[in-house]
């Protein structure tokens, strides 16, 4: 696979242009988000490349990336369903919601479904306390909020995401023919 600079040179330049010319280090986090968007997690090669772009050592880029919870270093499910179970959400049934959703998906929080589509995760506050149970879906380089959820509405979404992955696979197979 070609490297980040080849695939996203224009976006990298746009990111660098946001910050003063002598502050390229500020681009570390936006570049990590960009690298993750491409493959769903951050590879050691991407860390190295971001280090080269920003002039920061790859060790430091690694330490920054490890500090923040939205960065992932291992391939998980295609989509991460991240349920908030902090106090206000818990007062609206988020703990039970997470448990029941896990049962439906046949996984525990932190695990990925057998088809590789969904990783279920428990996360901290997402600023949607009045509309719990709620979760965000991280995947395809995007984050979307899903509020006022029930296990049924969440499973409907899961089926939609599964369908989406299947369609993609089919079109890829047809493309190869």
């Amino acid at each position, binding site marked *: 696979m070609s490297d980040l600079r080849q695939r996203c040179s224009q976006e990298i330049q746009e990111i660098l242009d946001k910050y003063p010319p002598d502050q390229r280090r500020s*681009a570390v986090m936006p570049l990590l988000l960009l690298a993750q968007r491409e493959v769903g997690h951050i590879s050691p090669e991407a860390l190295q490349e971001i280090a080269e772009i920003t002039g920061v050592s790859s060790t430091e880029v690694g330490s920054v990336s490890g500090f923040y919870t939205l*960065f992932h270093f291992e391939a998980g499910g295609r989509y991460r369903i991240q349920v908030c179970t902090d106090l206000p959400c818990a007062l609206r049934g988020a703990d039970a919601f997470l448990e029941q959703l896990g049962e439906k998906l046949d996984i525990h929080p932190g695990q990925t479904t057998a088809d590789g589509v969904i990783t279920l995760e428990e996360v901290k*506050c997402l600023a949607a306390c009045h509309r719990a149970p709620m979760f965000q879906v991280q995947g395809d380089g995007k984050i979307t909020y899903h509020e006022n959820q029930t296990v049924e509405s969440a499973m409907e979404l899961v089926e939609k995401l599964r369908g989406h992955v299947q369609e993609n696979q089919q079109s890829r197979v047809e493309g190869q023919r």
Partner: protein
Amino acid sequence: MSEYLLLRHRGIPNLDKLAIYRDSGGFSAYRKAVTQMQPAEVINEVKISGLRGRGGAGFPTGVKWGFLPNHLWPHYVVANADESEPGTFKDREILENNPFQFLEGLMIACYAVQARYGFVYLRGEFWQTAQELDRHISMLENAGLLGDEIFGTQYSLRLHTHLGAGAYICGEETALLDSIEGRLGQPRLRPPFPAVVGLYGKPTVINNVETLCNVPLIIERGAAWYRTIGTENSAGVKIFSLSGCVNQPGNYELPLGTPFRKLIFELGGGIPEGRRIKAIMTAGASSSLIKADEKALDTPMDYESVQQQLGAPLGSASVIILDDSINMAWLVNKTAHFFAHESCGKCTPCREGTYWMARLTDRILARKARKTDVDMLGSVARQMQNKCLCALGEFSTMAVISALQWFGEDFEELTA
């Protein structure tokens, strides 16, 4: 409330469209500031208005702006849109529905301190909101409201968004600055304060989204008008994020000084399923627990009254309601785990203290604790106080200490 001032989108549909925002008087305050007022006059007007920081600290906004030294340049303004406190969801509503009023406030703040670059730091989870905000910013560039020689003056201004990536601590202003600089989001030792040594080592103003949203109104209608709302020392309106055991959770925009009872029972519809209110938190997970007796319910929600009458800070006005079905040891276990997870690890009292508070409350909840463990929980919390590098560590002890003080029987129930 006759008229929404901050949540104006609730009265004016499609206020997130630039044309509609401008038709409703949008950017006239910005034009007035840039074309008719000296920067010092803008700062002075905001000072006189009595506007205080809505992120939680309640520091006078105009005074903060006035701290920037005029012999060190460039100046920066950073909007704090890291909203991550459990119980707080007001900035998100503004950013999604009334973004231009926020941006106008930010732009006036930039003019007031003569900053030519402003940043909006959004938590990474607000990815979608940031995309929209980028679009709004480019619309303002196309409309000539951002860029060079704004309104034909010498003033030029550019705004950029910067996304975090999941770290509560980045709402702390110095950690936020480090995060923009591409470092771990860990608080800095102060002094020097950001007003002198801030972003890239330059003088910097950092304001919360809701705070900035007040600014266009103050410039347009005047500080004297603003002071007619709220109380003597807590002027203006505030968005109260109401959550927890209440029938109608949500954001409520009210004059500061409105009593708790009105928010919880009149607007929030009271407590579900006929249960009784037991406690109130006013600053999200960072709050002390306030015993919800008649006196508390009649207390006006402004910075002074809540502190003086109830011994707790109003903070960000993230009001979490707890009813009589809630065991406070369970609650403290929730908040302790939150802070243990979000502690940045830079200072020892917070890193170790939050970890041990989480462990001890786990043991209490599992009914494996003795009374000495409960005493140790209090001891750990008290030893952390006044010893942490930033407010996170301090805040993590608030619920613990007040729960032990007011609701000791909840712990006894689990250790007996």
